[in-house]
């Protein structure tokens, strides 16, 4: 009985069946930018997963074997054995930083941290943002106005400056920097979610579901969420790019822990080395740029593949 009446109001929504998924994947792989983005990200995911095997030295703490014998305190230059570096010197690809740590190892381990930062930050922002957006869209009227004006205020501040204020308020650490960037990103997801709620709230299949006694929570999760998923995935992927970038910027300014194997922090603590030993600064810089580029390209590709209306 219930099944037949439910099928009468079958909503025009995307349902994640295996066929649907395969179709989406094929569309995605047809996008040049998505393929390039996935390839770049693949490299970093690989180095994040297997950092322990790829990196010749640990990321944290100074490696005593990298201090040049007889020259304590001197930084080891880049030294690759097959390129003619004497075998009695320790092998380092990008050289070592001010604490005698191997920069190549730290860049490899940095992939792990940056990917976690990206996903975790955006994850938190999406959870809080979609909740606010859903409440605003559902409630309408005063609540909607209040919540969305609050979001406008957050958006009105320059993101990085607001994040600096928040980190100063809650204390300097990587976790707090991620929290600050998540807070700054909330309005974007609140807007996306609210727009999705508003676009389907008054449609017949939602009215029908309500008439059949479906709870607001059920309407939200079964009727509205599937419609909001596409814009959320696209915005979220592009959001990871800016989250990685912004957390790195805070790290660069010294607002996370000192000595963290995070690309932004590595650049921040050594940036004067650009004149004498550019590799220890440029290596983490390029890794950071490529990761952000990967997420941006993937996001663009996803948008074109999932939502043909948006593609231009």
């Amino acid at each position, binding site marked *: 009985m219930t099944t037949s009446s439910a099928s009468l109001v079958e909503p025009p929504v995307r349902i994640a069946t295996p066929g649907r998924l395969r179709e989406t994947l094929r569309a995605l792989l047809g996008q040049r*930018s998505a393929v390039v983005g996935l390839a770049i990200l693949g490299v970093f995911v690989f180095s994040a997963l297997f950092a322990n095997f790829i990196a010749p030295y640990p990321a944290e703490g100074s490696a005593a074997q990298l201090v040049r014998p007889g020259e304590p305190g001197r930084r080891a230059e880049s030294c690759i054995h097959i390129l003619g570096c004497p075998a009695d010197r320790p092998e380092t690809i990008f050289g070592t930083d001010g604490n005698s740590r191997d920069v190549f190892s730290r860049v490899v381990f940095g992939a792990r941290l940056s990917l976690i930062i990206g996903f975790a930050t955006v994850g938190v922002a999406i959870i809080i943002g979609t909740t606010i957006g859903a409440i605003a869209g559902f409630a309408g009227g005063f609540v909607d106005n209040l919540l969305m004006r609050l979001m406008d*205020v957050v958006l*009105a*501040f*320059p*993101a*990085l*400056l607001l994040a*600096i*204020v928040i980190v*100063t*308020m809650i204390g300097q650490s990587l976790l707090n920097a991620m929290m600050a960037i998540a807070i700054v990103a909330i309005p974007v997801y609140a807007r996306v979610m609210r727009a999705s709620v508003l676009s389907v709230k008054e449609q017949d299949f939602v009215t029908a579901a309500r008439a059949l006694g479906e709870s607001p929570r059920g309407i939200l999760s079964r009727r509205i969420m599937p419609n909001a998923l596409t814009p959320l995935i696209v915005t979220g992927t592009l959001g990871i*790019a800016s989250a990685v*970038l912004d957390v*790195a*910027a805070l790290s*660069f*300014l010294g607002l996370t822990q000192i000595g963290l194997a995070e690309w*932004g922090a590595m*650049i*921040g603590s050594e*940036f004067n080395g*650009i*004149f004498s030993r*550019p590799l220890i*600064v*440029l290596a983490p*810089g*390029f890794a*950071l*740029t*490529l990761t*952000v*580029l990967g997420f*941006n*390209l993937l996001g*663009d590709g996803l948008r074109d593949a999932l939502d043909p209306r948006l593609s*231009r």
Partner: protein
Amino acid sequence: MTRFLVRRLLLTIPVMIGIVFLVFVLARVIPGDPCRAALGERANDTICNAFNERHGLNEPIPVQFALYLQDLAHGDLGFSIRQGRPVSELLIERLPLTVELGLYALLIAVVIGIPLGLLSAIRRNSIIDVLTMLVANLGVSIPVFVLGLLLQFIFAVILRDTFFGLPPSGRTVAGAPVVPLAVAWGLDGLGGPLRGLLDFVSNMYTVNYLVRFEWERFIDAARHMILPAVALSTIPMAIIARITRSSLVDVLGLDYVRTARAKGLAGAMVVRRHAMRNAMLPVVTIIGLQLGALLSGAVLTETIFNLTGLGRTLYEAIIGRDYIVIQGFTLIVAIGYVVANLLVDLSYAVLDPRIRLS
């Protein structure tokens, strides 16, 4: 047009009051004792009490706000807790650099971004289009501080002794004198806001040297601006190029453009006379929105290039809990936002008569 302008100006008043209030509250929410932050080791209860008394920090918060408003009405932005100097003096000394830098960055972004976007919209899917969009993607992906360092490495290390070599940091060669315009023009006795304005302009070094026809010094100051301005311009440039492209592609697909083509107008004419005007609306909006990106970028650019401007000062004030400086500088930023929005709205009215009339 006048009515539009007046109405639009009146609308900014409640926004400004809201911002003043918000900035005041935000500055107070930052935990930590400003006295201990400012005096460090020397701080003890007696000294801090006197310190708080002197800076009005012992009063209840609402009273502090009232006093703050009263001072603002007199054009007084207060004294920096850490530096013991008037905030207005700090502003006149440090804001001009950031304004100068931001204007050059925006200029570069517009002058390169719009033509790139146009070209790739007209030659859609050509190699130019693909390359432009690749550059645009790179532009939004490379962090400002990484690009700044890369530019330093290329132009101040690799190309140092060549024709293309550029100075890596600072504003002028060491020891170059910067004479305030008021002094140079014999207006030393001048006081008040006019003097402030003149000093403000004097501290934009390129402008200062330019209006006094000191060509060599001007070229030196301009050369120091190039790298930071380019670093700061990439994100706005990439965004402007993307928006120009997508907006023009949209407009070129509209019926009225087809009509213009059908009546025999040349392709370039159609773009210039018919499509551009409509396509520019979103571009103008996005240019107005770049102020936030420029400010966030200024903190990082000024750090890399060893410049003391608004970004660096604000950053240090936040870290050092210098409430009064945070308030003063944020207020200026907020005014900047309001002015930018106003300019965007005005250019709408110029570009699209329908907005002016409604």
